[in-house]
């Protein structure tokens, strides 16, 4: 048993019972090519559509009756509505009302993509930097445009901290600009890295369960169970962090600090 462990480690991922990165592979389910652009329907697209379907279906079903005394489904939708509305109210203020639908969409979308990844054999769309970076760039560009519409060229004042000695300004402005432009990177990498690391870890532990067999596999299995709980928490937390950071960036653009 010990020797087989050893050889497994030496030969690397190929003889490891489960390749931890295999779960992140994009599979083309339907090849679509329009005007030279590859827009194939992949497993990633499938899970995005599943998330969209679940969210739309749940909300539409629950608001169709729209009773004053809510049903369970309606309660869930109303709770999430209030949750996001509170988040927007606290972080953006009353001006954030116009952007609430977008924040709500974003939060629910990321939350469901993360949660769908927790289902066995599911695919975690948010574990791909392409998706998270596209989302982050959308938010970054949108927020910057809102800032310029709101304040005109005065939005450049955002990079000039107030109450700082003049000789320090060149340095601080550079730092501010860099920190502003790294926002989409930190926003996207945070989500992507969290999701990828968690799922890789789960897969590695599941590999250990098989490797250590019936006698020794119970320990990694217990760790896996605990880790699954933690991953579900992280799935929620990262969606929340993603949404709340969007709120904070939006607040910066609307009010400048």
């Amino acid at each position: 048993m010990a020797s087989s462990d050893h050889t497994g480690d030496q030969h690397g991922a190929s003889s490891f019972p489960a390749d931890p990165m295999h779960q992140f592979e994009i599979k083309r389910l339907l090849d679509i090519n329009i005007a030279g652009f590859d827009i194939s329907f992949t497993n990633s697209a499938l899970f995005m559509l599943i998330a969209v379907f679940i969210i739309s279906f749940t909300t539409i079903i629950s608001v169709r009756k729209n009773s004053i005394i809510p049903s369970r489904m309606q309660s869930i939708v109303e709770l999430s509505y209030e949750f996001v509305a509170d988040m927007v109210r606290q972080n953006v203020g009353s001006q954030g009302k116009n952007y609430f639908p977008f924040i709500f969409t974003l939060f629910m979308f990321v939350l469901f993509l993360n949660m769908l990844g927790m289902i066995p054999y599911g695919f975690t769309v948010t574990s791909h930097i392409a998706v998270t970076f596209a989302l982050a760039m959308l938010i970054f560009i949108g927020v910057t445009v809102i800032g310029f519409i709101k304040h005109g060229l005065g939005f450049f004042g955002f990079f000039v901290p107030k109450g700082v000695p003049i000789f320090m300004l060149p340095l601080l402005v550079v730092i501010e600009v860099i920190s502003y432009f790294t926002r989409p990177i930190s926003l996207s990498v945070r989500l992507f890295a969290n999701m990828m690391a968690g799922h890789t870890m789960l897969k590695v532990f599941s590999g250990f369960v098989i490797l250590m067999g019936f006698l020794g596999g119970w320990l990694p299995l217990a760790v896996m169970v605990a880790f699954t709980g933690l991953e579900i928490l992280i799935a929620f937390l990262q969606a929340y962090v993603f949404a709340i950071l969007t709120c904070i960036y939006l607040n910066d653009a609307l009010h400048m600090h």
Partner: protein
Amino acid sequence: MPQLDFSTFLPQIFWLCISLSFLYIVLSRYALPRVSDVIEERKDIIAQDIDSAKEYSEESEKTTEELNLKLSEAKVNSQNLINKSLQDIKEDNEIKKSSLIKEINNEISEAEGDIKEKKETALDEISSISESLAVEMLENLSVGKIDKEKVTSLSKIDN
């Protein structure tokens, strides 16, 4: 690492745009307005209910005050009534008592007069009866005729 396979970026981003915009349209055009409507409506109803509850409680306080006022008034009134009727009864009793005493006194004096009269008549009768008794006794005892006038004069002396 599949994440760095650039050939998959375009399809991922394309479908991301499609699904996100579809979800945004569904939520912002249809679902969220209705959710906010129902929440607002519920808030309004609750606020209305609270308002009406406040009104009712104020009203009930007012009526309680009125009730208390009326109760105290009624208490005073009833006390007055009791006092008055007590006094009336007392006066009535007084009057009845005095008239009763008067009546009794009258009756007593009447009875006294009666007794006096009766005594007198009785005395008269006794003297006449004793007169006639004496005459009869004497007639039975003696042989001759008895002078009635003498007996009368004798009895008169007796008296």
